[in-house]
């Protein structure tokens, strides 16, 4: 707990009446539940039968039936297992590479900054100005030439490029937080870059790394456009798998709900687990 949390939690500040605090707590609960309602309703729907789902009734009870329906795919069509593995590999590998590239880059922009660090930062952000819907055709042409269509590698390559700007920006902010005295002490001791990183810097910015990694994972796991345009059948990722449950034969709302929950669950769980770290990372004076 931060100093602040400890103080907040224990005593009431001057001017905070107990009823006001309690009232605000209730308000927070109401707001939270309302905001999450669409998701909760989807979870509820995923346990219904299709007739109940489309009519918003509850005549046939609840079961895990839809979950098992979507988990079994016919041979030859995209299965949950394939899509899940593809997503997992793509996300983990691309995030690791992003961190591996962003950490040294942040060092060069924060600890021993280069002369033109502002321009470099601007360049990194500017790479996100080109709409990916525009760059897709040249990328498609080259991916085809180099036989990368339908592979995980092409997505890994692209996702690294998508997440790198944000990661560099964030890591630089966290690195700025490392006290100068520690750096100077390490340099006087004669440690090289790698050891500096390992023993001095990384332990301090670890929450920041976790926050950055989490954001990269979120954006990579949920990315839909590149995956759809460059990958078919076996290279497909989870977002595409969810869409395959939008059927044209009859109702599909319950199955779609079940598929959506399955697809979003990993990232949601990761986010829930890491949220404190993320806030701490962002509040580490990252933006001072």
């Amino acid at each position, binding site marked *: 707990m931060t100093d602040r949390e400890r103080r907040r939690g224990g005593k009431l500040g001057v001017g905070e009446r107990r009823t006001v605090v309690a009232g605000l707590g209730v308000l927070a609960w109401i707001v939270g539940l309302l905001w999450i309602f669409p998701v909760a309703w989807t979870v509820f729907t995923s346990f219904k039968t299709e007739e109940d789902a489309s009519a918003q009734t509850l005549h046939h009870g609840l079961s895990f039936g839809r979950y098992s329906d979507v988990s079994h795919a016919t041979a030859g069509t995209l299965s949950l297992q394939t899509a899940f593995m593809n997503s997992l590999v793509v996300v983990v590998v691309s995030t690791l590479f992003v961190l591996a590239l962003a950490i040294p880059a942040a060092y060069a922009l924060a600890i021993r900054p280069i002369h033109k660090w502002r321009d470099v930062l601007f360049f990194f952000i*500017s790479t996100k100005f080109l709409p990916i*819907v525009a760059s897709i055709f040249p990328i498609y042409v080259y991916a085809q030439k180099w036989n990368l269509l339908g592979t995980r590698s092409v997505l890994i390559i692209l996702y690294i490029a998508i997440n790198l700007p944000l990661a560099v920006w964030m890591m630089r902010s966290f690195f700025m937080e490392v006290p100068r005295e520690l750096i*100077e002490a390490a340099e006087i001791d004669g440690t090289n870059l790698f050891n500096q990183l390992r023993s001095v810097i990384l332990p301090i910015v670890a929450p920041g790394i976790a926050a950055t990694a989490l954001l990269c994972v979120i954006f990579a796991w949920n990315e839909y456009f590149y995956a759809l345009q460059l990958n078919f059948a076996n290279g497909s990722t989870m977002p595409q798998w969810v869409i395959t449950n939008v059927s044209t034969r009859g109702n599909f709302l319950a199955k779609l709900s079940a598929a959506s929950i399955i697809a979003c669950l990993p990232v949601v769980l990761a986010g829930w687990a890491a949220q404190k770290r993320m806030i701490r990372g962002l509040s580490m004076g990252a933006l001072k």
Partner: protein
Amino acid sequence: MNATAADVALPKGKAGDPFSSAWRRRLPLLPALLYLVAITQLPFIVSIYYGFTNLKDKTQSLIPEPTKFVGLENYKQIFSDSFFRQAVWTSVKMTVLAVLLSLIIGTLFAILLDRKFLGQGVIRTLLITPFLLMPVVAALIWKQQMFSSLFGVLNKVLDSLGFNSVAFISDHPLGSIVTVLVWQWTPFMMLIILAGLQSQPTDIIEAANVDGASALGIFRQLTLPHLRRYLELGALLGSIYIVQAFDAIDVMTGGGPGSTNVPYYVYQQSIGGGFRYGAASAYAIVVVIFAIIIATFALRVLSSLFRDEERA
């Protein structure tokens, strides 16, 4: 002045050239920089090239048309294209509305959550969740479950209250999309502002409290200025991502009137049905140029983000 470069061990394997301090500083940056240049600038340059041609998908002409150089023809057409202007206006509306609303609501949520109450962790966890969902899933949830005229929850509620059902997506395409965007991005803003609130030095607040300042006064005079950098960061990051919003439009309206933003319009020109890659590339280049201009201007204004203490 920092310890000089001589104290830092040279990377292995580098040949004898005197390693100036400047280059040693640049070295750690190079992998990321070179990677990004390679992956993002190559398509960009190719797009510039396409923008000067009449490149089309081969299926678009029954008699094979050779791709030829057409100079500034594509660019001339852009300026007489009223649909592009509509798309730009829609982009502006969509981005400004979504960013502002999510920032305001996110700040309110952050203020609400910045105290200890029963189940604080649970509520914060729940509030974060929309940001963690896939954009296509979020759009589908709202389209099928909430907004649907036939079976949607909102209409069922309106129905039970005695009102007519509203065809949200058909009648209010832009509003529907902004709703989904705000729903997803408010948690993100909330996290940033929460970080800002929790990094506020409490001693000043307590001093002000002791002096008898009102809660609102404290907020306006002390908290808000402190939050300024966080608000700006939220606005910047949010804008960069929201201006590229695509999935929600594709899923919910397919580009209905008033909901086609610039990325979706460019998509319609290229692989979304027009298959006019040359013309679409020209649009994209125009968009990038405008974006760079706007961003340069905006970052000068939001200079606090760049006004860091430099480490020499």
